[in-house]
């Protein structure tokens, strides 16, 4: 269910001003606080922030408005190239301080991506579901190939973005802004119109919801955030090239939205951080004998087949059952590994770093089978949710008249 439209303490202007002020203060100090960390850790934190922006903004299009877009990387790219182009042509000429320059290029990237979003949004007036997915995918590829062949944009080499700017505060500030905007939208009647379009277009139109405009606006707002993220990326990496915006990026973003729970903002945030972090964390995987590598998938497939027999019971029992299945997988995998090790050639060691994507893929399959509705399903991590966990009843509405 969506965020219910009842009010809690966030409705008061002073609460909001105070929280905005507090967030800005923390963000402005963040880079100073984390100055001691090594560059790799900072890099991970910044990229995770960008993925949060991308996943949450895609969730606005895919999850909240129900328009299946597979071309989100294209908007990211438009923002990055806009920033790259501006930096290479205008930065030295205008000679602005970086603290002023960054917001400007982010806005420019957002506007450029929003225009691209408008162009993609227009065919979505007529297309639904799979067809829209194909069109958005194609649009992304077209933009990528155009950039790849345009001398202005540096062909496959890309553009050098001269002033490097790496700020955790700025990146996560953008992420928080994106989350706040989506959450605000869902707290108002306007946001309900977006959800209504997802639920039933015909009924929405009959209730006077401007279906076309709502869909296009979702594309425009969603891609604007992706564009701003792209501008940050361009200045973070110091260069932009088409290789950074391949279809894989769009796919992983869709995976994040689905895995987090379609339509859930906090779910998208959690999934974005997790899915970005898991492959990075697995760079350190130990070398493993062949037997275990073969054993693990067999164990997982064997036990997850049981999960496919749908279980109808209390949620708590279901959790216990899923936990049991996971533990069973581990035990069976170790046992199978021990048995397989007796076969010839099975004791060959495989480099851990080569296993990264295999383990990632298996993790995704396991998660999707165990929890097809996504990590948070349609719920949100929110204050009201915390209240409910503490046993307080959900707020009810009284007629005021």
């Amino acid at each position, binding site marked *: *269910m*969506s965020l*219910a*439209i*009842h*009010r809690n303490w*966030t*409705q008061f*202007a002073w609460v*909001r001003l105070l929280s905005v002020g507090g967030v800005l203060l923390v963000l402005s100090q963040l880079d100073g606080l984390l100055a001691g960390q090594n560059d790799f850790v900072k890099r991970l934190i910044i990229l995770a922030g960008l993925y949060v922006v991308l996943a949450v903004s895609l969730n606005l299009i895919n999850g909240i408005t129900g328009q299946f877009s597979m071309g989100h990387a294209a908007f990211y790219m438009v923002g990055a190239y806009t920033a790259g182009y501006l930096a290479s042509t205008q930065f030295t000429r205008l000679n602005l301080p970086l603290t002023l320059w960054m917001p400007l290029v982010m806005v420019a990237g957002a506007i450029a991506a929003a225009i691209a979003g408008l162009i993609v949004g227009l065919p979505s007036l007529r297309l639904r579901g799979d067809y829209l997915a194909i069109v958005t995918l194609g649009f992304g590829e077209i933009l990528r190939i155009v950039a790849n062949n345009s001398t202005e944009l540096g062909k496959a080499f890309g553009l050098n973005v001269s002033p490097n700017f790496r700020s955790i505060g700025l990146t996560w500030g953008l992420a928080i802004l994106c989350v*706040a*905007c989506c959450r*605000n*939208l869902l*707290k*108002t*009647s*306007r*946001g*309900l*119109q977006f*959800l*209504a379009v997802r*639920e*039933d277009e*015909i*009924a*929405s*139109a*009959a*209730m*006077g*919801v*401007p*279906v076309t405009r709502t869909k296009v*606006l979702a594309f425009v*707002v969603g891609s604007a955030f992706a564009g701003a993220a792209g501008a940050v990326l361009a200045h973070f990496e110091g260069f932009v090239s088409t290789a950074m915006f391949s279809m894989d990026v769009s796919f992983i973003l869709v995976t994040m939205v689905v895995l987090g729970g379609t339509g859930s903002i906090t779910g998208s945030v959690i999934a974005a951080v997790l899915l970005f972090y898991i492959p990075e964390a697995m760079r350190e995987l130990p070398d493993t004998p062949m037997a275990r590598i073969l054993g693990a998938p067999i164990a997982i497939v064997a036990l997850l087949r049981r999960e496919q027999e749908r279980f109808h019971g209390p949620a708590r029992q279901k959790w216990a059952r899923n936990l049991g299945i996971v533990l069973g997988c581990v035990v069976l995998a170790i046992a199978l590994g021990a048995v397989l090790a007796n076969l010839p050639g099975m004791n060959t060691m495989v480099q851990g770093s080569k296993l990264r994507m295999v383990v990632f893929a298996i993790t995704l399959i396991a998660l999707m089978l165990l929890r097809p509705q996504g990590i948070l399903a*349609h719920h949100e991590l929110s204050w009201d949710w915390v209240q409910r966990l503490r046993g307080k009843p*959900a707020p*009810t*509405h*009284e*007629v*005021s*008249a």
Partner: protein
Amino acid sequence: MTTLLELRDATIRFGGLVAVNKVCFEIHPGQLFGLIGPNGAGKTTCFNLITGVYRPTSGEIFFDGKGIGGTSPSVIAEKGIARTFQNIRLFKSLSVLENVVVGGCLRRPTGLFSALAYLPKAIQITDALRDEALRYLKIVHLDHVANVRSADLSYGMQRRLEIARAMATQPKLLLLDEPAAGMNPQEKGELNAMVRRIRDDHGMTVLLIEHDMRFVMTLCERIVVLDHGEEIAQGPPAEIREDPKVIAAYLGEAH
């Protein structure tokens, strides 16, 4: 007397099939108007013509004196026609209350920016719509389930929620497509009184499609009968009951 809705030779063809053929009727403000006919007579297609889902092949539809044939559904909703659906089309994963709020949105639009920034104006509008929505839920006796997911309601409740959602747009004309389908006799009796109240207390004109003859005959003041897309009779219930053509086409089958 003024006319609220007028169909003048409204016709729609799907390939070789004439689904609605030169149908003419006028609805006056404050009327309870019935549209009946056997299955496949073109009743729902008629609704779809009025609400802009289909564009008439020929003929014209006037609402409040202006032609609305071929106008888009959301614009027609803004002009003051709201409808319910034969195959219930609620916003399933939204709560009962949220469904009704969506209906009210068209009267109190919020700018996208003020919604994204959570400006006081957007909050006020949302709160006002929520309070209104609760009042509409009271009318259809659903205020006690305001926070339930609409898909979890019983069939009869879902039908009543559709009525509340349509009423929230504050239409001049309310179109009900088989509002009593799937209801038991007691629920039908309550619905009958409810529709009457909607007209009497809220001043909405009602056009309804219904298969239950007793329901239509006791509720409606004027009835149009369609058969195979053609209008075969029109008049007050007493006349319709006696009309030999209607008995042959429709009532004859039942008795």
